[in-house]
């Protein structure tokens, strides 16, 4: 029992009449307000380990199908001690804050563009990092809360604890107070996602940050080095540069490895044009603190690489590692049930989301060789729950999933890259239509249009099925989304070119394609509306 007394005299005197009563009283409080039951074992139809995009979608659908479900969620603090609430990577340290910061960054550009459209805007627009960060974090907190309420409304037991397997039908959750809860369950879905890797450079873990930390950084990042040329690295460098923080990207090999390399080079060209510095074919060797509390980074050519920027060093305020993400399967004790995982990546081998153990499944970023995207995890989780507890037999289709890289000039695509198309079909069986285009709103504020480019790859023989659609330009995500539905319907080049565009938009450029790479003709636009 606890007793509460107010000990400051002046406080009592200054309070209003009603509060005086509460000051004078001494209250007795009954025992602990945490009433989560830790007694005994609890039976479930499904325990989901991981409260992110995939896990929650699966859990909610399972409940809708009548199953008794518990969701475990736990966030291991980052090396910088950053933590966050329920909802997984997307909500807390991924898609959502990324898109908000990307948008905030573009707004700064829009303010400047506005002048050329006649707006009188006094002074220079400057970003207040803390105000922007707080606005973003507030939004995240509201989503954390809505997610929590939603679990309750759906009658899903939420356990804020670290999960591991004791055997194929028992999940152990370790709570914050080190208490353990045993959950007996018929089925398990592992949806623990992944976390950022750090480079092996000396001082990387001690002095560097990752995407886990950037979205809640307590002070403006200043001059930043982003190590890594994947979409996370490019997106972060993109918005930081847009905010006015001098940004450098260090690429070990190529940007957006695995993506269409021609489109990737457009994205990088655009970023360079905006002032992002690129250090190519290099890896950091060491990070060390300078006397004025900044970070000295020394780098060298990637082992085995030819050319590139070569050895160098520079001082930065922030070093952000975006060198890949590792599945969080080490601490799950998957071996207790015999679940097979990839030795290096830790990712789980599945067929239709089922592991080698019949009652243990997995969805989301933790899957071996599947796209690491929220909508993919959500759909896979939902369909899995329907197959497990409902009558639906629909399998997840991982093909033709549209995606967008939210760099300052965005890159959206659906389907195959040109490289992958050539590998599968041979260049002689492909036709590649392409064009540079001029967004209507760009000339007035004199925005650079040299990287506004689209490309459609199709089969050369009838029916000329479209294999891939690629777009670099503003609002790429919005542009490409509808086309992914068309791809699902196996749209042909004839159907695409038969589609009448909306004018003036950038998306309509897909309906105006006439020039092929094979023709060798100039893909630059002649004139509008012709």
């Amino acid at each position: 029992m606890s007793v509460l007394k107010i000990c400051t005299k002046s406080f009592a005197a200054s309070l209003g009449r009603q509060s005086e009563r509460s000051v004078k009283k001494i209250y007795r409080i009954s025992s602990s307000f945490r009433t989560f039951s830790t007694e005994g074992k609890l039976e479930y139809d499904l325990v989901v380990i991981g409260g992110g995009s995939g896990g929650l979608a699966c859990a909610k659908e399972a409940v809708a199908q009548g199953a008794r479900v518990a969701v475990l969620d736990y966030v291991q603090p980052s090396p910088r001690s950053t933590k966050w609430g329920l909802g997984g990577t997307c909500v807390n340290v991924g898609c959502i804050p990324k898109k908000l910061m990307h948008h905030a960054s573009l707004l700064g550009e829009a303010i400047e563009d506005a002048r050329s459209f006649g707006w009188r805007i006094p002074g220079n627009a400057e970003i207040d990092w803390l105000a922007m960060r707080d606005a973003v974090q507030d939004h995240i907190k509201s989503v954390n809360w809505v997610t929590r309420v939603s679990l309750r409304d759906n009658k899903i037991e939420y356990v804020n604890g670290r999960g591991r397997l004791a055997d194929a039908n028992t999940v152990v959750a370790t709570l914050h107070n080190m208490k353990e809860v045993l959950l007996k369950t018929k089925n398990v879905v592992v949806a623990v996602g992944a976390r950022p890797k750090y480079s092996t450079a000396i001082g990387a873990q001690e002095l560097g940050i990752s995407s886990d930390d950037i979205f809640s950084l307590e002070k403006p990042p200043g001059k930043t080095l982003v190590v890594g040329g994947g979409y996370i690295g490019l997106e972060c460098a993109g918005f930081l540069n847009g905010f006015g923080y001098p940004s450098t990207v260090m690429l070990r090999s190529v940007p957006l490895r695995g993506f269409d390399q021609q489109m990737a080079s457009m994205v990088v060209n655009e970023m360079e044009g905006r002032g992002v510095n690129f250090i190519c074919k290099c890896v950091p060797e060491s990070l060390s603190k300078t006397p004025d509390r900044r970070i000295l980074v020394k780098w060298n050519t990637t082992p085995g690489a030819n050319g590139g920027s070569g050895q160098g060093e520079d001082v930065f305020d922030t070093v952000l590692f975006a060198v890949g993400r590792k599945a969080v399967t080490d601490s799950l004790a998957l071996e207790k049930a015999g679940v097979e995982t990839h030795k290096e990546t830790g990712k789980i081998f599945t067929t239709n989301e089922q592991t080698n153990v019949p009652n243990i499944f997995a969805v989301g970023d933790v899957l071996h060789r599947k796209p690491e995207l929220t909508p993919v995890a959500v759909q896979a989780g939902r369909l899995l729950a329907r197959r497990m507890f409902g009558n639906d037999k629909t399998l997840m289709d991982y093909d033709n999933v549209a995606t967008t890289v939210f760099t300052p000039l965005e890159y959206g695509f659906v389907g195959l890259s040109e490289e992958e198309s050539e590998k599968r079909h041979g260049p002689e069986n492909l036709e590649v239509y392409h064009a540079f285009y001029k967004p209507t709103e760009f000339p007035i504020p004199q925005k650079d249009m040299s990287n506004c480019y689209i490309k459609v790859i199709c089969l050369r023989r009838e029916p000329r099925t479209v294999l891939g659609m690629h777009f670099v330009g503003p609002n790429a995500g919005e542009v490409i989304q509808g086309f992914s539905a068309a791809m699902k319907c196996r749209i042909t080049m004839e159907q695409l070119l038969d589609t009448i565009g909306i004018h003036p938009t950038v998306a309509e450029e897909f309906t105006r394609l006439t020039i092929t790479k094979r023709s060798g003709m100039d893909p630059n636009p002649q004139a509008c509306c012709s």
Partner: protein
Amino acid sequence: MAVHQYVNSLQELEAAIEQFKNISMQVSSTPSRNENTEHLINDFPIFIIVSGTKDENGVSWCPDCEKADPVLEEAEQSLAPEPSAFITVYLTREEWKNPKNVFRTDGRFRLTSIPTMLKWPNREPKLVEAQCADIDAIKEFFDECCPQDQD
């Protein structure tokens, strides 16, 4: 257990927050029969509840606030972090229905409905409407606002 102030305007609210910031709360706990420890706590959560004024019969014009009242009181007694402070802001129907009401427009609150409970100075998460009359939701809200430290 908690200490509670009742105010009628943003100005009074700000004054109450200032007051709470300048006091310490003495908490004694008896973890076992023979021990008795006391400590002074300067940094405790301040919860703000925005509600509707009551008439001369003690009934609020806001039905959700009426329903929430006894539940919030119970929660304060038995679920709130120890120690914590509460401030209830009472708004008249006219004040609240005004779209320019400061609790709707001010960036520190941005309320869209009452009753609402939030933890100062965080705009989110917010416990809103029927959630304020749901003892389990209130428990989750306290847990979300004041998570137990991990590791």
